[in-house]
């Protein structure tokens, strides 16, 4: 499989965002970093753990590439008082909801949502200190263009961080391929990437990769639990979200992982 794919579903989030918002809340991520003692899957704390791992610093100008409804951006800007975030999504519906949520949080001066393709960004070169991809590279049609654009808009020394649901690089065989295709189709992805091809594409764009690792402390209880409801009358039932997205027998070879890289000071 090459780095460029041609199939895309740009209307996926226009169709499903309202349901995701009701079912998942404002952070559209399948895996939450387990934080605290005892460990819990708290979206707020999960996002803060991710940006800490990314190396985000107060004062940064940040690009959130695949910003959803700006749930993570709002969490980050609420925690870091001097961070400015530009989010991009290819869904007009998401951008509209994001702007509403940003305004409601009183953060319109520091968080913005744009309808744009992260493979062709509407920002000048060298603008950002940090670029974040949270479970969004599966929507890339061209992984080289994705990371070349991230490289272009980062300042020299700027940081790239990707946390994603990756296709496990060890997976092979027709059954694994079929499961991945079902998974990608279900969630509107172009194609889930492997960590290795992501690292290769980053290196090809000029990045220096400092970390590429599976994430052990990720939980999916919130994801699974959002698809079901429990009550004393009907017992266990699918929710509206579960009716739309739960598929019995779907068990693709995927893994959560994170990749950190930076744009060298001198190319």
């Amino acid at each position, binding site marked *: 499989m090459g780095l460029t794919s041609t199939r895309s579903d740009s209307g996926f989030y226009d169709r499903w965002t309202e349901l995701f918002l009701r079912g998942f809340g404002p952070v559209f991520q*399948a895996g939450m970093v387990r934080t*605290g003692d*005892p*460990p*819990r*899957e708290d979206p707020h704390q999960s996002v803060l753990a991710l940006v800490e791992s990314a190396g985000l610093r107060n004062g940064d100008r940040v690009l959130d590439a695949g910003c959803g409804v700006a749930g993570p951006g709002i969490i980050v800007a609420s925690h870091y008082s001097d961070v400015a975030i530009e989010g991009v999504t290819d869904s007009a519906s998401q951008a509209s909801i994001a702007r509403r949520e940003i305004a409601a949080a009183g953060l319109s001066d520091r968080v913005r949502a744009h309808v744009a393709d992260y493979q062709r960004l509407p920002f000048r070169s060298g603008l950002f200190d940090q670029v974040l991809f949270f479970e969004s590279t599966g929507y890339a049609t061209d992984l080289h263009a994705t990371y070349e654009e991230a490289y272009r808009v980062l300042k020299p020394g700027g940081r790239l961080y990707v946390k994603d649901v990756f296709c496990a690089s060890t997976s092979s065989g027709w059954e694994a391929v079929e499961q991945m295709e079902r*998974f990608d189709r*279900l*969630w509107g992805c172009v194609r889930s990437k492997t960590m290795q091809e992501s690292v290769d594409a980053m290196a090809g764009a000029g990045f220096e990769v400092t970390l590429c690792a599976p994430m052990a402390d990720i*939980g*999916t*209880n*919130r*994801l*699974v*639990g*959002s*698809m*079901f*409801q*429990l*009550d*004393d009358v009907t*017992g*266990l*039932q*699918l929710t509206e979200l579960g009716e739309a*997205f*739960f*598929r*019995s*027998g*779907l*068990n*693709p070879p*995927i893994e959560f992982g994170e990749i950190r890289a930076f744009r060298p000071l001198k190319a």
Partner: protein
Amino acid sequence: MEQIPPELIGRAIQDSDFRRRLLADPESAVAGEGYELDEDQIRTLRELDPEAIDDAIEALIGDVDAAKWG
């Protein structure tokens, strides 16, 4: 009434040992786990039939591992 939190439902689905403890004695099962449930939620969990929930999981999900990814 507040719904049972999704994280708790997901854990009960994916962790059969936790599910058994949760449905047998909800207060003890969530104590020290960081979940905050009100009296109605505790009562709901107490009134659930563990065998019926196991059957529903089997019927709806089958292999629980397959539930991880939607």
